């Protein structure tokens, strides 16, 4: 972590920090993230350990408001995807703190959205030509068969043939901790 980087992640600041994630999408990611922390008994201000380039940093994650019944019910729709969306909130807030990337590019993939990191706000048409790929995954609670390490390994395997540089961020919500790997 940059020693001057603010060690707080405020979920409400997502749409300001991660342009062009819209307020509606950032609100959605924030809610999923809150549910993931709530299901593990955590509250606003929870400490999140982040391992990146062999160093461990700690961030405090803050949000306002409580988890409602509606949020909990929505988490039943597609549990796996929703944990990934919760992880997206954390990843999109971590990126500007831990890397030089400030601009996010998006594209649709299947029924979801994937993210790319642009080095600067390019003005030409080839918007993805100098971008790094961002791969995010979430785990509600690690188990012997579902670990952060295994997820990182799986993502690295999938990116083996990718020529683009890539960042992989896996967030675990029970401890909670996150690993960020650059490819």
């Amino acid at each position, binding site marked *: 972590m940059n020693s001057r980087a603010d060690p707080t992640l405020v979920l409400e600041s997502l749409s300001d920090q991660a342009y062009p994630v819209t307020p509606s999408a950032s609100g959605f990611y924030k809610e999923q993230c809150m549910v993931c922390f709530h299901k593990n008994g955590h509250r606003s201000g929870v400490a999140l350990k982040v391992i990146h380039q062999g160093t461990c940093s700690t961030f405090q994650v803050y949000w306002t408001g409580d988890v409602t019944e509606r949020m909990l019910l929505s988490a039943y729709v*597609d549990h796996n995807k929703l944990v990934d969306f919760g992880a997206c909130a954390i990843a999109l807030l971590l990126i500007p703190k831990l890397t030089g990337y400030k601009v996010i590019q998006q594209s649709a993939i299947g029924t979801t959205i994937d993210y790319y990191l642009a080095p600067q706000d390019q*003005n030409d*048409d080839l918007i*993805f*030509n100098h971008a790094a790929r961002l791969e995010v995954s979430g785990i509600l609670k690690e188990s012997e068969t*579902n670990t952060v390490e295994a997820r990182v390994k799986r993502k690295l395997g999938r990116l083996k043939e990718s020529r683009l540089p890539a960042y992989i961020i896996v967030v675990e919500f029970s401890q909670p901790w996150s690993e960020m790997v650059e490819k």
Partner: protein
Amino acid sequence: MSKVRELHDKAMELAQLALVARYSGELERATTLARQAYEFESQAAELIPYGEASEPTRSILYRSAASLAYQCHELGLAQQLIAKGLSGYPPPAIEQELKNLLTQISFERHLQNQDLALSQSDVQLSMYGKAVGAGIVLYSEFTKRVNNFFSLAGKTVQRKLGRDFQSAGQVARMYKSFVPALAAPALGSFIVILKLAQPQDPRQLTFLVDMEQLIDEIMTGIELVNNSDDEGLRKLIRDETYYYHFVSLTREMAPDGDRINSVGFTTKSRAINLTRFYNDIPLIAQPKDLPNQELPIATIAGKLDYAIARKKSTIGITTEENQHYSVSVHEGLEDLVRSYFGQWVEIVGPSKGTLVYLRDIRLLDRDE
């Protein structure tokens, strides 16, 4: 701002709204938003000149436009956009994603096919992935799913008739309400029809359950597992043993994301695409007879072996170093474990000495 960026940004704004709408249960709105997003994104993609220098932007935009077309159920348009993306110079990773999307779309087109002559006791099983070719499939990937489906159907009959879970022994004739049968695979993919045929013996008709209802209940259960709706599944299958049996066998039928990407089940009235990966479906949270103490988690690789079985719910595993372990199996998981007998597996669970309480089991070598 460039025209491409302007169109793409509008598309992504709408795509984000579509995503939120979909997960908020507003499916019609999600489709409308995805359609609007698709129109902007496909225009953006068309503006990028064909050529190596345009990559990966060109193929990423076509993949994105195709994904949005897929979201608004324009499967034909999505296929055309994928073809355009593939016709350029996509980098290998994007090329693979375009092909995966194409496979997914072809699969859904099969599921949407309304010309199927399925009867009320038929289920069409379709598989897509690396292990599947045109009319050919790896034997083990096929038999595993067929056997598990019929096993699920058999246990569902017993549960619907109020019988206690029977983990071993001959099933009484009165509970055999169907005869498993297969119809010949269709050309061009690997699709077969699983038939729960009516028994010839009229004495068995006394306890016959409604086949349409039975299949519908199995489909509902598979859908609940696919959606990670554990609470819903527990409501559907209140008996714990039957519940574990259902989860364990649905998990066995699930795609592994490598050899098999999708497994489809189609009946006369509905279609389910089982896309949740095998690895993402937990087998069991709390092993049976677990002592009330903190136990270390052991991972044992070895061959499952009948010979050292001590009691009905305990089986044996022998490692390469000829070390013997006993494995305590939760009721309901016997069919799953039985399917691995004589094979090399990895067993995970809390352990005490040479006793392991089964929490997970995986086949080690699937190459056959």
